[in-house]
């Protein structure tokens, strides 16, 4: 209420001076002046607008790191994600702040997703199947994996604008997320989305139609974040909803369908994805089948290797959890029966 009144008095600055109402106390003007916190989001939007304009009118003059097809959704998600994370960390008590490797994991995750979507790499990925598979690997596996590993939720939540924060905490939203983030739904969704966009007819439509292309990319990033947050939750259950064992089974279960689809594409004897032939391959020296073999291998090997990496990280989370819990007072007899990871980790 007060600030509203100050705004009215202070807004036409010239009138203020002319009428000699310089008596508005400086301290009150200071509360009206925007802090850097409030200015950064405007800076982000302004920067986005400049980038959008440059991309629209001067696509040939932009450097490689500039977007090929500017997307407000992708740009704002990355920029605001970064900003809220940094703000959130600053607002956190020094002792509770995430460690440096978690900052690095978050930063590399977000930057890698942004890099495959909002730079000229996107143009390359539209015109080589194996580069397109690499793009999907990064925006669905590696990038969200690193973001989930940094476990940034609490920091981001701390700096989010209040209305958005309330939305994130809304029980209905949480219920939907909880439903999607259960292994029985999350695992088939994770594999199903990869496969859906790889159905040749669907892939053709998604590549040629800008709108479907955007839907494909959003769905992949969102699903990647949901799935890896389910698996890489550092907490034990409760408060996490599923035990470490269930999460280990989940992450191994998604490996096999990816191996099957990846090897099917890698060994296919005919060109399944004609879009790249029609709209052109960036490296014409690479034939359709070579391109496809390489793409299939990317779906097959590195994608399923992520499952192994995640499996070991969950195992590590389990160990850390066990070590953080004080050992119960056990008799010598009980000690021999109970299973402790310290037996094989030696810690």
């Amino acid at each position, binding site marked *: 209420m007060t600030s509203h009144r100050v705004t009215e008095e202070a807004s036409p600055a010239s009138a203020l001076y002319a009428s000699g109402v310089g008596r508005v106390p400086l301290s009150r003007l200071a509360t009206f002046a925007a802090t850097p916190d409030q200015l950064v989001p405007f800076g982000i939007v302004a920067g986005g607008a400049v980038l959008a304009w440059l991309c629209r*009118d001067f*696509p*040939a003059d932009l450097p490689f790191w500039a977007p090929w097809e500017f997307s407000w959704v992708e740009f704002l998600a990355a920029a605001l994600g970064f900003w809220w994370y940094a703000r959130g960390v600053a607002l956190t008590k020094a002792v509770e702040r995430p460690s440096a490797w978690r900052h690095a994991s978050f930063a590399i995750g977000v930057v890698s997703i942004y890099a495959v979507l909002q730079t000229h790499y996107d143009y390359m990925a539209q015109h080589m199947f194996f580069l397109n598979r690499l793009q999907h690997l990064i925006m669905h596996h590696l990038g969200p994996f690193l973001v989930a590993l940094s476990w940034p939720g609490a920091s981001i939540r701390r700096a989010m604008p209040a209305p958005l924060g309330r939305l994130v905490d809304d029980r209905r939203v949480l219920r939907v997320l909880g439903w999607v983030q259960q292994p029985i739904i999350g695992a088939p969704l994770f594999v199903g989305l990869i496969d859906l966009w790889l159905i040749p007819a669907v892939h053709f439509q998604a590549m040629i139609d800008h709108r479907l292309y955007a839907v494909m990319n959003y769905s992949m990033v969102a699903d990647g974040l949901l799935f890896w947050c389910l698996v890489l939750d550092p907490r034990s259950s409760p408060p996490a909803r599923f035990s470490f064992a269930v999460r280990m089974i989940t992450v191994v279960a998604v490996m096999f369908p990816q191996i099957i689809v990846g090897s099917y594409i890698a060994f296919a004897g005919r060109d399944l994805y004609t879009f790249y032939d029609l709209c052109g391959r960036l490296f014409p020296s690479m034939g359709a089948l070579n391109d496809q073999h390489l793409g299939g291998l990317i779906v097959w090997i590195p994608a399923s290797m992520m499952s192994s990496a995640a499996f070991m990280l969950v195992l590590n989370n389990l160990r850390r959890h066990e070590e953080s819990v004080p050992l119960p007072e056990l008799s010598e007899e009980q000690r021999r029966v109970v299973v402790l990871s310290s037996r094989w980790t030696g810690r």
Partner: protein
Amino acid sequence: MFARPALAAAWHNIDVAGDVPPLAFTMTDATTGKPVTAADFRGKLVMLYLGYTMCPDVCPLTLQNVATILKKLGPTADDVRLLFVTVDPNRDTLPVLRQYTALFAPQIVGLRGSADQLAQLARRYRLVYSVSPASKTHPYQVTHSSAIYVFDQDGRPRLLVPSLATTTPDLAGTADDLRRLLNQSRPGWIARLSQMF
């Protein structure tokens, strides 16, 4: 998106109605030397193709096939234009482009754009193009897509013609498709007026 009639007979080429944006570009017409836009081709069936005049195989083969198809169409071919957009504007000057297109058919229009105009067109239709000048390690290299987009008289996307640079070009089928598009009645003036807004 335009609803596709469920019972319509299948096209010989790939149906892309509603999948890509309507025809839009600004370039220089090699014949007149004047700037042209998509609006200048309203009322014509437009085929859009990217290429370059020094192309050793794909472009001459494609244009020769287009010329054959246009001959099949007879007098109605006058309502068709093939826009031959050069991806190599540094070497394809307007006179070069004009001479080259004239070799094949009068309905082929050479278009030359600035680097930005070309990039905008390629991005809009997801087409690939690149020029890498000769260096010590490789000769002058040009890459371009091989498919032809077909837009109807109102600039709406209709077909993608995949086969004209292959060893088995579907000349009869493509001629059929073009005839079918030419025979479709144009929308009434109300529909056309409403499209202007």
